[in-house]
């Protein structure tokens, strides 16, 4: 309950800062405000994927079914957030580059993350009811988790991109004003808290569903 309240306050604060307090970026103008939503959404998509991978690894090590419930829940949330990332990114691309889709390496990489989630859910559908399902799902999630840094961080950097320099770039410097940095940090915290709350809710739904199934 405290976390939900805290998240409510931080989310309201970040919305105020994004839409009222922070000045628009020099070249990008008012459209730059979407960055405070787009970057945290992309961050949560990757975080959810990492959590799903780590939970799968824990499941393989300890054979506790709780971990696979966490992995499945995190993957569900990650799918939702990666869809939102693609939508916000496309809207911004339309304003900045003239079309919703530009085949930019970084634009494509988040879509590939989305494809990984879709592939995982296809596997989940096919193996449901199979006693080996948790094991197969876990191994696939770990393989996908290991492949994802190549997808998100390495491959897009091998080719020219339309995207602005990443927030944390090759020089290890933050290329943002102090105000923008602060707002982005608060937005990142609020979205991370939101992910934490959603994960808890999703796990509870899974547990209740399985209890109903048993009865």
């Amino acid at each position, binding site marked *: 309950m405290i976390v939900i309240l805290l998240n409510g306050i931080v989310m309201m604060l970040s919305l105020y800062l994004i839409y009222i307090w922070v000045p628009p970026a020099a070249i990008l103008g008012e459209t730059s405000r979407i960055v405070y939503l787009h970057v945290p959404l992309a961050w949560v998509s990757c975080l959810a994927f990492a959590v799903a991978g780590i939970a799968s690894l824990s499941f*393989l090590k300890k054979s506790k079914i709780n971990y696979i419930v966490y992995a499945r829940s995190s993957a569900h949330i990650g799918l939702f957030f990666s869809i939102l990332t693609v939508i916000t990114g496309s809207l911004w691309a339309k304003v900045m580059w003239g079309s919703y889709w530009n085949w930019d*390496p970084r634009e494509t990489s988040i879509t*590939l993350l989305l*494809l*990984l989630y*879709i*592939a995982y859910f*296809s*596997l989940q559908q*096919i*193996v449901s009811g*199979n006693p*080996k399902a948790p*094991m*197969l799902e*876990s*191994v*696939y999630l*770990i*393989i*996908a988790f*290991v*492949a994802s840094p*190549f*997808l998100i961080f*390495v*491959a897009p950097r*091998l*080719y020219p991109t339309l995207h602005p320099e990443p927030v944390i770039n090759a020089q290890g410097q933050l290329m943002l004003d102090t105000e923008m940095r602060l707002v982005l940090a608060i937005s990142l915290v609020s979205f991370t808290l939101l992910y934490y709350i959603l994960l808890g809710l999703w796990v509870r739904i899974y547990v209740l569903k399985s209890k109903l199934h048993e009865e």
Partner: protein
Amino acid sequence: MIKALWRNIQKDILIEFRSRIIVSIVLSFSVIVTISIGFATGGIINSPLLHAAILWIIIFFSGMNTLSHVFFREIEESTALFGVIHYPAVVIYLSKLLINCCVMVVIAIMVIIIYVFVISVSVYHGIYLIAILIAGSLSLAFATTVIGAIAALAGARGGLFTILAFPVVLPLFTVAIQSTARCFEQQVFSPLSAIIFLLAFSMVLGMVSYLLFPYIWREF
């Protein structure tokens, strides 16, 4: 371990030699697709990038038809259990991986020969092209062998393997296509970064798959 590995590889080669399923599937698939593209385009494609993309799509889908076959056969013929009783799971994984690596390299070489023969494409950097094809096909084998086992254990012969493998291999696919395209251009370039990326990708996924395979290949 090496003896067990060799016995497993011998067994797989012997079975393939008797049935010739992989050879016939790959050969007919790659010839049909390449000839279809030749018919559709009149054998003239002007973009090196398009050549590279078509080439890797043929290699990928030829591979998808065969890479999971070694595991499906074990499950369908109920020999997986005997394999697990006689050999540690890692030996089975390594033998299938080596078979898949050989199959993928042969597919890549076969497809490029058919492609160059059917469609008029100028290769300016032949050695680089061979190096990229070998590195790319090895990466495909390393990345998809364990996924082939997952698809076989899921009991879904259809498109599941392709659906699961495609997003995982896309980074190597992108790099392989971009660097192959440069082999069809006159400008001098170095394929070193692409080859390092492909080999690093295969090493990382190969090691992870080696560690994970014993968890899924048991209790049949």
